[in-house]
C-alpha cells in the first residue's frame, strides 16, 4: 500500500497518459471500427451498410473451421519447435556467453535486419526440390524420391518457426540471465544431480521467459499468412490467408472483419487457458 501513498495525486495518471492516448488512437478506435464493420453487409460496388449482420460470424465459423484449426495447429507446433530450439541457445548465452553475450544476442536478432518477406523467400531457395536439404532427406530416405518440402505444411511450420525464433529466444535469455547462479550451486551442494538442479531450479525460474516467449511467438504466428502463402500449397492455407483474400481480393470487408474478431477471440481463449495452466504470476513475470 505504501506505493500508492507515495504517489498520490495526478502523477501516476499523467505517466499513464501517453500510453493510454497512443493505444486509444491506434488500437481501440480501429478495433471499434473493425467491430462495426464486422456487422455490416453489402459490397464494394454499392457500398456497405450497418445491419447487425451477425451471420458474418456464423458463416465464417461454418465455412472456415478448417483454416481456423489449422492456424492454431501450425502456430502451436511452430511455437513448440521455437522453444526447443532456442532454450539451449538462450541458456548457453546466459550462462556461458561471458563477454560475447551482446555479440551473440546480436546474431539472434541479425535476421531481423532483413525484410520478413525476403527472409521467407530465402526459404523457398533453401527448401527447393533440387536443393541441398531435400536431396539430403531423400538420401536418408526420410523423404520419398518424389517427395518435396515446398508447398507442404512442413515448410510452412519451418518458416514460421524460423521467422519468430527471436521472439522466443530473447525473453528466454532475459529470464535465464537473471537467475542467480548460486541457487544452482546450492542445489548441487544439496546433492541434486545436474539434471535435477535444472528441472527443479533453473527451469522453474525461467518460466516467465518461457511464457512470454510462447505468447510472443504463438499470437503473431496464428495470424500469419506470408509463410503459408509462399511456402504452402492450396492445402496449407491458414486463416490469415482467408482474411487477406476476403479483405484484398473479394473486398468483403464485413466477413474479413468478423474473421479477425473470431481469431482474436480464439487467441484470447488460448491465452486465458494457458494462464490458468501455468499461473498468472508467470504470465506477468512477477515470479522473477
Amino acid at each position: 500500500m505504501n506505493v500508492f501513498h507515495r504517489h498520490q495525486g495526478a502523477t501516476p495518471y499523467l505517466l499513464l497518459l501517453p500510453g493510454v492516448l497512443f493505444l486509444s488512437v491506434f488500437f481501440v478506435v480501429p478495433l471499434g471500427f473493425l467491430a462495426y464493420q464486422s456487422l455490416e453487409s453489402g459490397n464494394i460496388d454499392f457500398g456497405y451498410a450497418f445491419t447487425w449482420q451477425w451471420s458474418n460470424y456464423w458463416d465464417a465459423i461454418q465455412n472456415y473451421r478448417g483454416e481456423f484449426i489449422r492456424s492454431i495447429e501450425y502456430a502451436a507446433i511452430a511455437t513448440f519447435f521455437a522453444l526447443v530450439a532456442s532454450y539451449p541457445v538462450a541458456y548457453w548465452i546466459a550462462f556461458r556467453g561471458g563477454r560475447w553475450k551482446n555479440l551473440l544476442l546480436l546474431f539472434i536478432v541479425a535476421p531481423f535486419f532483413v525484410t520478413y518477406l525476403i527472409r521467407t523467400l530465402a526459404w523457398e531457395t533453401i527448401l527447393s526440390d533440387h536443393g541441398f536439404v531435400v536431396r539430403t532427406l531423400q538420401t536418408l530416405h526420410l523423404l520419398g524420391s518424389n517427395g518435396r518440402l515446398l508447398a507442404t505444411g512442413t515448410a510452412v511450420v519451418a518458416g514460421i518457426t524460423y521467422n519468430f525464433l527471436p521472439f522466443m529466444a530473447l525473453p528466454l535469455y532475459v529470464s535465464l540471465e537473471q537467475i542467480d547462479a548460486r541457487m544452482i550451486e546450492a542445489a548441487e551442494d544439496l546433492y541434486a544431480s545436474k539434471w535435477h538442479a535444472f528441472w527443479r531450479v533453473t527451469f522453474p525460474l525461467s518460466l516467465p521467459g518461457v511464457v512470454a516467449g510462447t505468447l510472443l511467438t504463438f499470437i503473431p504466428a496464428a495470424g500469419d499468412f506470408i509463410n503459408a502463402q509462399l511456402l504452402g500449397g492450396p492445402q496449407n492455407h491458414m486463416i490469415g490467408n482467408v482474411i487477406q483474400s476476403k479483405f484484398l481480393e473479394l473486398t468483403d470487408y464485413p466477413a474479413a472483419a468478423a474473421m479477425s474478431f473470431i481469431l482474436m477471440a480464439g487467441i484470447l481463449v488460448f491465452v486465458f487457458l494457458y494462464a490458468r495452466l501455468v499461473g498468472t504470476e508467470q504470465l506477468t513475470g512477477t515470479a522473477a
Partner: protein
Amino acid sequence: MTDQLTRRQLLERAAVGGAAITFPGILAACGSSGSKASGGTTSVEQKLAKTLNFSNWTLYIDVDNKTKSHPSLDAFKKKTGTDVNYVEDINDNASFFGKIQGPLSRGQSINRDIIVLTDNDRYLGLMLRKGWAEKLDKAAIPNIKNLAPVQRHPNFDPNRDYTLPWQSGMTGIAYNDTLTDPVLNVTDLLENPKLKGKITVLNSMGDAMTIVMLANGDDPTKVTDKAWNDAFNRIKKAVDNKQIRQFTGNDYAPPLARGDLAAAMSWSGDIAQIGNKHIHWNVPTQGGALWTDNMLIPKGGNVYTASVYMNYVYDPKVQGLMEAGDPKRNITGIYYIPPVIGAKAWALKFNPAIANNPLIFPSSETLSKVKIFDNAALNNQKYLTQWQNLISG
C-alpha cells in the same frame, strides 16, 4: 526536400479534405512531386511536374542490363525534364486495389500519377465506376491516333476517356523441357500424373477460367453457370488430388527456372523475358486468354504530366524500343504485345529477332485462338467467392 515549404503550400495541404494540418500533409508539401490531392481545381494545369509517380507491374518496361536503368524513362527525362519515379509495386490487381481503395474512398491522393490495371480483372472497371480515375488530357496526347483500332472502344471505357493500353498479353502454358515432355494443353497440365505437384495455375480468375473453359469446349466470352461449374470443378479436382502445387501471380518464374516447377499456367511476356532456352511457352491447343493492361490516372494524380508521358509512349519509335529492346545497347524490352501502330517498323530496326517473334507481334491466326473473358462474370460475386475459396481456403 531542399525546397522551402511555403506558407501557401502549407495552407493548401492543410485545406485538403478540410482536415487540420497533419504531419503527412506537411510531408507531402515538402515532396517534390507536385501531385495534387483530390478535390482541387477542375481545369488542367498545363505545367509539367518535376516528378511523375508511376506504379507498374514487375518486369514491365525496358531495362539496360548493365546499369539496370530504364532507357525510355531516362530519355523522357532528357526530353521533358520530368523525372519518372517508376515503382514496380503491382503484383496482382486485387492486392494493389486493396492498397489504394482506402485513401481513394476517403478522397485522399495515393501519390501516384499513373497506375496500370488489367481488363480481365474486376478492378479496372470498378475504378472507373467509382469515379476514382481522372479524365485524360487528350489535347496533350496527339499520339492517341496510333492506338491499335481493336483497342479503341473497350466496353469499360468506350471512348478511351480514362484509360490507355500499356501492353496486352496472352495467357498460356509454359514448361521446362529438362523436366517434362512438351505440355501443350490443359489436360496435360491438370491431369497428367507425371506432373503431379509440379505445376501452378494463375490466381487470376479470368485467365485460369478462360483457358479451362476453352479446353472444355465452352465459350469464355459468354459464361454460363454450367460452363463455370464444369471448369471450376475441373480445377478443384486438380487441387484435391494435389496436381496443382500453388496458385500464383507472376511469381511462378523463379521456381520454373529453378526446376521446382515442370509447367505453369503463365503470361507470354514473362517467359520471353526470362530468356531461358529450356523454358517454352505456347497458346494451349484449344486456345488461350487475351488481356490488356491499362494505364489510368488515379484521382489526385497530375493529369497533364501523366498525359504527356502517355503521349510519349505512344510515339512509335519510343514504343518500338521499349517493346523490343536493343541488343547492341544491351537493352531488354518488354516483350508483351504493344498497342501502338507503327511500333513494329521501329522494333525491326532495333531488334529484328523480337520484332519477328509471333508472341510479341502475333499473327492474326494466333490472335484468333485467344479469347477475352466475359466481363459480366468478372463481377459475379458468387463466382468470385467460389474462386477465392478455392485458391486461398
